[in-house]
């Protein structure tokens, strides 16, 4: 079974694994310069033009695995020498152009950018073209295509573009740290910085959890991950890595569902606050809408807060599918409750750095949350949970009319409407990734069955209602 969707993820994982391996052994300072050679052993180059470039890029990956550029507070970074300078994004006329007589392309072009050569074939003047795509949509031969860069195509908030020397550049005033470009760049030139060293340090310095306890808070989307093993085995692996206990972030989601329902009744209109990329998107693009963002903590932060209440010296490491959670954890309101954020990719690297085979481990148990907390992992789950929370709290006189926004483009459309008061729904469930958290950039794999897996995992919860799960908290 494939552990990753792409070999770019695998490469990133190998680097993270080596960094974690040396960190666990407390030998990183002396060994980190050797990692590029482990990654690209040579003598033949397998990824780039020569072994020297491969190793230079690997060294950059090591740097990002060790926390990246400390002067850059943002999560997503571009490795300039890894950016393969994809062709400049533009519409191009291909060989399918028959040099027809109709010239629909020319008629459709609002800027007069299209002319014809002596063979009657169309040409686009790049200086005049505004990339509107109208010519492409009318060509009867589909001869005109857009050669947009994969990173630009992936970034629906238009935060990444070609900068100096044709290398990709991130505009952080627009970037929401969702990680789409990280996942889509075919050369692995855009990377989310890792806090894997912070996690190893927290574990090591706890001295086997004697000085303080290190808790792993796991996102419910884990149910669609690590498919080659059982969840119970992953829990055992986490404890073998040195975590004191493993807790479901879904219990935080149960808490959020209850308080979100009450806030909705109180305010009458709300946008969700679970997805940090969605929240960041509102803040950066719809300042008028900020007042409508739910004041609830996200499930991650709610869970961290509760853990620290039960164990004030405890440390909280959130493990999930999300790169934007790394940014959220740095916000003032989250900082006291979450000490570190890892992705599932990074967890895989952490596990393999200790060289044990998950599939051979015994199964431990993970059960803290209800069905409703668990389905937060997929698009639509949050809305279902809020409706359920209204019912359970006797607030069902209030009719929730949710608008489930699956992906940041749907979020944008909803916010545009809400911004001008044209939205008929009263609750926007905003999830930046398509499919919800299971579509996150930090997932190992993405597949058609992920949603079914989340629902199945939800059904397996010991507690069937949100209220029952919350009764666990005295």
């Amino acid at each position, binding site marked *: 079974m494939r552990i990753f969707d792409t070999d770019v993820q695998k490469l990133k994982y190998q680097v993270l694994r080596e960094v974690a391996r040396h960190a666990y052994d407390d030998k990183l300072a002396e060994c980190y310069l050797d990692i590029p050679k482990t990654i690209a052993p040579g003598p033949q180059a397998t990824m780039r033009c020569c072994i020297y470039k491969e190793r230079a890029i690997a060294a950059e990956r090591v740097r990002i695995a060790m926390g990246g550029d400390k002067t850059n507070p943002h999560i997503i970074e571009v490795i300039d020498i890894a950016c393969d300078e994809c062709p400049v994004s533009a519409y191009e006329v291909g060989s399918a152009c028959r040099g027809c007589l109709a010239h629909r392309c020319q008629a459709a072009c609002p800027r007069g950018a299209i002319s014809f050569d002596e063979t009657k074939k169309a040409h686009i003047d790049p200086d005049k073209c505004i990339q509107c795509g109208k010519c492409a949509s009318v060509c009867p031969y589909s001869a005109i295509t857009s050669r947009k860069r994969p990173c630009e195509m992936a970034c629906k908030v238009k935060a990444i573009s070609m900068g100096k020397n044709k290398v990709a550049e991130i505009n952080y005033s627009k970037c929401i740290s969702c990680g789409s470009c990280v996942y889509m760049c075919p050369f692995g030139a855009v990377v989310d910085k890792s806090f894997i060293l912070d996690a190893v340090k927290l574990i090591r310095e706890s001295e086997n959890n004697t000085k303080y*306890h290190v*808790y792993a808070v796991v996102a419910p989307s884990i149910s669609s991950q690590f498919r080659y093993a059982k969840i119970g085995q992953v*829990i055992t692996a986490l404890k073998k890595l040195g975590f*004191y*206990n*493993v*807790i*479901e972030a879904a219990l935080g989601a149960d808490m959020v569902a209850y308080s979100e329902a009450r806030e909705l009744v109180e305010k009458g209109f709300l946008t969700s606050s679970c997805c940090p990329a969605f929240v960041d998107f509102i803040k950066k693009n719809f300042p008028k809408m900020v007042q409508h963002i739910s004041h609830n903590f996200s499930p991650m932060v709610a869970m961290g807060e509760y*853990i620290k209440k*039960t*164990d004030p010296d405890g440390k909280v490491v959130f493990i999930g599918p999300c790169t934007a959670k790394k940014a959220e954890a740095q916000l003032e309101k989250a900082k006291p409750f979450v000490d570190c954020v890892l992705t599932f990719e990074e967890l895989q690297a952490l596990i393999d750095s200790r060289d044990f085979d998950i599939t051979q481990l015994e199964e*431990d*148990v*993970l*059960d*803290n949350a209800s069905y409703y907390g668990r389905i937060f992992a997929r698009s639509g789950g949050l809305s279902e949970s809020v409706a359920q929370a209204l019912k359970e709290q006797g607030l069902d006189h209030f009719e929730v009319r949710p608008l489930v926004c699956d992906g940041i483009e749907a979020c944008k459309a909803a916010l545009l409407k809400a911004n001008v008061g044209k939205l008929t729904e009263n609750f926007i469930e905003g999830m930046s990734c398509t499919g919800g958290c299971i579509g996150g950039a930090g997932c190992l794999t993405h597949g058609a069955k992920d949603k079914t897996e989340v629902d199945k995992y939800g059904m397996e919860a*010991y*507690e069937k209602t949100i209220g*029952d799960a919350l*009764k*666990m*908290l*005295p």
Partner: protein
Amino acid sequence: MMKVTICIGSSCHLKGSKQIIEKLQALVAENNLKDKVDLAGKFCMGNCAEGVCVSIGEQVFSVQPDTVQTFFNDEILAKA
């Protein structure tokens, strides 16, 4: 104030911590001990095999849903 901590980690949860919490909350209320007994939760007390773990101070007890009443009588009511 007597602090009674009930393990709410996964393992104890599946062995019935919720029933124990509900029962203890009811017993504390019935006996007017709300000012004297503080019920709290904790994720794991490192003794999963003996769950459900309930601690009073340094002492850890193994309580089952059907032994809550006895536990309450002997360890809480008698000492609070």
